[in-house]
């Protein structure tokens, strides 16, 4: 999120696309509803399904799954062609605008209607609504990202906010409501196969930086890898790790995967689960670390699985980063129960036995605070360095001193600071950055320009050259340079603001009233992406053969995170004949993620005991399906799920919705007896992901679980 949940209280309009916050983030809704009731803000909800969030909307827009880019580029086209865009903002702080406009001009209201199913008149009306209610916020979640063009969708959302001039403003911003409680923090720590903590990447310079932080020899770390090539090569992802085992698609690694550690991660959130299940028996070792028996322990037949009981997060302590980039300290409530151990202890025991404990824990004596300090020392890119453990604890202990509207402490021990020191928190006295890219405040007081990350000049594909730094006169108050400037480097010779562990560079920048990362323009054109400006491409499994020819998917990617990933060779115009419905998945308020925790809670299980498929009344009647009857959902990949039919007009007649929190049953067969005795959850059911399809984002490899195809028939 560029802003915060509380800041939505200042929005004049809320545009939510691919989010069902009423179920996924219920407590955030108070701030959205405040904007609706107090500011009279239109709440526009764009979703293929009439969700519980849509029930709170002033304007509900039903969209065909996987066509967000077309709709949003259509809105941008309206805003630009009607001259409703923020000209000052675009002139001073945006790059690649003419190139973007040219692409957007294709998406006329009629074209948008054909692709998305949204009436042309609605495209014009929504665009006007957004232009006349500023600043507005744009919110999205997995409905925007889990597509083969997910990265284009998210970029289109950002460009929409740029042309409206809604960035860096209270009430505006691009606000992604993140899922898990610490998914923001875990992302920042880069538990990711393409980066080291703080988004440093995995190039040589990044490894050397972190080796300095860890105080270990770079050559030693290098010696731990198969070869230097593999040190700089992106690894397998959560989306496709099992291909490293199964090798149904060709892998680009010297060895197949033989062992898996699954630590606090639900196996049933992977698409095409029947393939994950297949991998379980091919692995030599599976180590599952979880407080509850998860779905994964019921799959596979081999004696290759260990279950390690870690304690819940209430039985340990540490910091976490909320969706609003706020740090909070989760204080330990009680000691680990039964024989469970907390995560830190399990890791320490494992590392000790693997023989690198001395190097691993070199700077870490007191757990977890010394780890926090090591994070602060190295994570300069996103300003974790000012969020020291004692500051985070002080904020959490004094949460009552912060103002609900500004999130700033009014007096008390944190006076003037923003709640949770939202990152970047540049120094030990910095108050945190409540709104990213806000040039109305000095950098020392939480202001920021756009980051200068991509050089200072660019020549586009059309031959035009543009200066990438912000325009003259545009900078935060008190900045020594009144206009754009590049990132800070060589204050300490041979380093830049990201690699200077003494942090002198960052302090020097702040002293000069400037941002360590420079002051540049936000880009509408990303010259390293296959689609430099977002364009519509039909889902890999598309229900519209006529549009596949016009908007085909990408070429196959032979080595995407170590595995061949099919795009064009997978897109088959005839698939829809056998699999005529679009399948989408989502959340219920009563359950969370894979559901091992919530389905082990008897109250929540009683509130929401069954998995079901939402089927439109017309579809159900045509297929002879009655409400409450069992049906088979079949996927083109061969997976099938037996679930109860929920006949409803929440979905349209082309779409089937399933919540994805369930497990304990597989393709009609109960797996309850495969859990350790007495530990099967109260609520069991088919995992929706048995029937989600093949398909991955071209950049991130996120699975396309929001636009596959399926068939439905009575069971």
């Amino acid at each position, binding site marked *: 999120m560029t802003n915060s949940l509380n800041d939505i209280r200042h929005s004049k309009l809320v545009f939510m696309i691919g989010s069902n916050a009423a179920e996924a983030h219920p407590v955030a809704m108070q701030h959205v509803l405040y904007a609706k009731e107090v500011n009279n803000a239109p709440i526009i909800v764009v979703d293929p399904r009439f969700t519980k969030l849509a029930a709170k909307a002033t304007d509900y827009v039903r969209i065909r799954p996987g066509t967000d880019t077309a709709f949003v580029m259509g809105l941008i086209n309206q805003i630009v062609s009607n001259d409703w865009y923020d000209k000052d903002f675009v002139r001073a702080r945006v790059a690649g605008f003419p190139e973007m406009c040219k692409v957007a001009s294709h998406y006329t209201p009629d074209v948008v209607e054909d692709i998305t199913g949204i009436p042309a008149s609605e495209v014009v009306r929504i665009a006007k609504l957004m232009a006349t209610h500023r600043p507005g916020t744009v919110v999205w979640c997995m409905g925007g990202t889990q597509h083969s063009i997910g990265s284009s969708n998210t970029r289109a959302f950002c460009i929409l906010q740029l042309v409206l001039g809604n960035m860096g403003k209270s009430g505006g911003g691009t606000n992604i409501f993140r899922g898990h409680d610490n998914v923001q923090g875990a992302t920042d720590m880069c538990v990711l196969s393409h980066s080291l903590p703080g988004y440093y990447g995995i190039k040589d310079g990044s490894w050397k930086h972190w080796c300095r932080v860890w105080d270990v020899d770079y050559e030693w770390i290098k010696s731990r890898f198969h070869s230097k090539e593999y040190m700089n090569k992106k690894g397998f992802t*959560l989306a496709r790790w099992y291909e*490293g085992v199964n090798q149904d698609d060709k892998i680009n690694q010297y060895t197949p995967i*033989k*062992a898996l550690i699954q630590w606090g991660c639900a196996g049933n959130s992977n698409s095409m689960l029947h393939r994950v299940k297949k991998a379980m028996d091919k692995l030599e070792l599976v180590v599952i670390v979880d407080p509850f028996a998860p779905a994964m322990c019921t799959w596979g037949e081999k004696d290759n699985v260990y279950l390690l009981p870690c304690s819940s997060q209430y039985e340990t302590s540490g910091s976490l980063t909320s969706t609003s980039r706020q740090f909070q300290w989760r204080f330990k409530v009680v000691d680990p129960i039964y024989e469970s151990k907390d995560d830190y202890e399990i890791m320490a025991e494992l590392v000790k036995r693997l023989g690198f404990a001395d190097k691993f824990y070199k700077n870490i004596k007191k757990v977890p605070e010394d780890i926090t300090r090591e994070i602060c020392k190295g994570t300069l890119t996103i300003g974790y360095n000012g969020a020291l453990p004692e500051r985070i604890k002080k904020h959490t202990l004094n*949460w009552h001193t912060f103002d609900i509207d500004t999130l700033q402490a009014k007096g008390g021990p944190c006076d003037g600071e923003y709640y949770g020191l939202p990152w970047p928190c540049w120094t030990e006295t910095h108050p945190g950055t409540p709104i990213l890219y806000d040039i109305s405040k000095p950098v020392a007081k939480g202001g920021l320009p756009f980051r200068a990350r991509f050089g200072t000049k660019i020549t586009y594909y059309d031959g035009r050259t543009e200066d990438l730094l912000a325009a003259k006169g545009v900078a935060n108050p008190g900045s020594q340079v009144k206009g754009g400037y590049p990132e800070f480097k060589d204050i300490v010779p041979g380093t830049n603001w990201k690699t200077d562990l003494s942090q002198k560079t960052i302090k020097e920048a702040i002293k000069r009233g400037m941002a360590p990362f420079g002051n540049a323009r936000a880009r509408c054109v990303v010259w390293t992406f296959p689609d430099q400006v977002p364009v519509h491409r039909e889902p890999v499994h598309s229900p519209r053969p006529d549009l596949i020819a016009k908007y085909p998917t990408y070429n196959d990617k032979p080595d995407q995170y170590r595995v061949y990933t099919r795009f064009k060779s997978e897109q088959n115009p005839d698939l829809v004949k056998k699999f005529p419905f679009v399948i989408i998945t989502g959340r219920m308020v009563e359950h969370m993620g894979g559901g091992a925790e919530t389905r082990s809670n008897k109250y929540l299980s009683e509130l929401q005991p069954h998995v079901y498929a939402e089927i439109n009344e017309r579809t159900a009647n045509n297929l002879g399906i009655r409400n409450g009857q069992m049906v088979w959902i079949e996927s083109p990949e061969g997976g099938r799920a037996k679930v109860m039919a929920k006949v409803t007009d929440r979905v349209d007649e082309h779409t089937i919705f399933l919540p994805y929190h369930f497990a304990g049953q597989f393709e009609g067969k109960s797996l309850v007896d495969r859990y350790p005795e007495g530990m099967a959850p109260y609520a069991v059911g088919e995992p929706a992901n048995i029937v989600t399809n093949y398909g991955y984002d071209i950049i991130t490899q996120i699975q396309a679980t929001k636009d596959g195809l399926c068939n439905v028939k009575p069971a």
Partner: protein
Amino acid sequence: MAQKKIINSKISGRRSRRVTFNPKMARRSFLKLSGAAAAVTTAALAPKLTRKVSAGTDKKEPYPGSKKIKTICTYCSVGCGIVAEVQNGVWVRQEVASDHPVSRGGHCCKGAGAIDMVTSEKRLKSPMKRVGGKWQKISWNQALDEISKKLLDIREKNGPDALHFNGSAKVSNEMAYLQRKFAAFWGSNNIDHQARI
């Protein structure tokens, strides 16, 4: 209207009754409470519930010597405050944090039952291993010794990239950091977590 409905409901109507999230609390009231929170999903109602809760607890101190610990809900990224009451090392009841600047006393049905995370009978109680298709209880030492020996064997035979590590968005920053650091020290980039999907 939603607010009115809640006020008129049995829970807030029974003023004399102590409303807690204690597991001993009648299941029915819990369901009503969490059901209401789920259905309305607006904390517009939360301050009302909160006041009732505090008004109730002021009357009597059923857990003498207990202490209240501020902590954060583990369900979603909103980061709602929770006030956990602990007596003799046991989490005895849970209160909403009406003064938390983001959640302001709001809870969904999941967060309202956070205490069940440590009281659920379904929690895994000891390390286990599948032997002959059946789960067998083993000691921590046996589990960790066998796992690390096997990992080192695989590393020796197939190389470090034969291990894939799926980490977590449900652990602290510190633990997430250790997971990434573990992969680095093990010698592989085969590490990922839920943010990918």
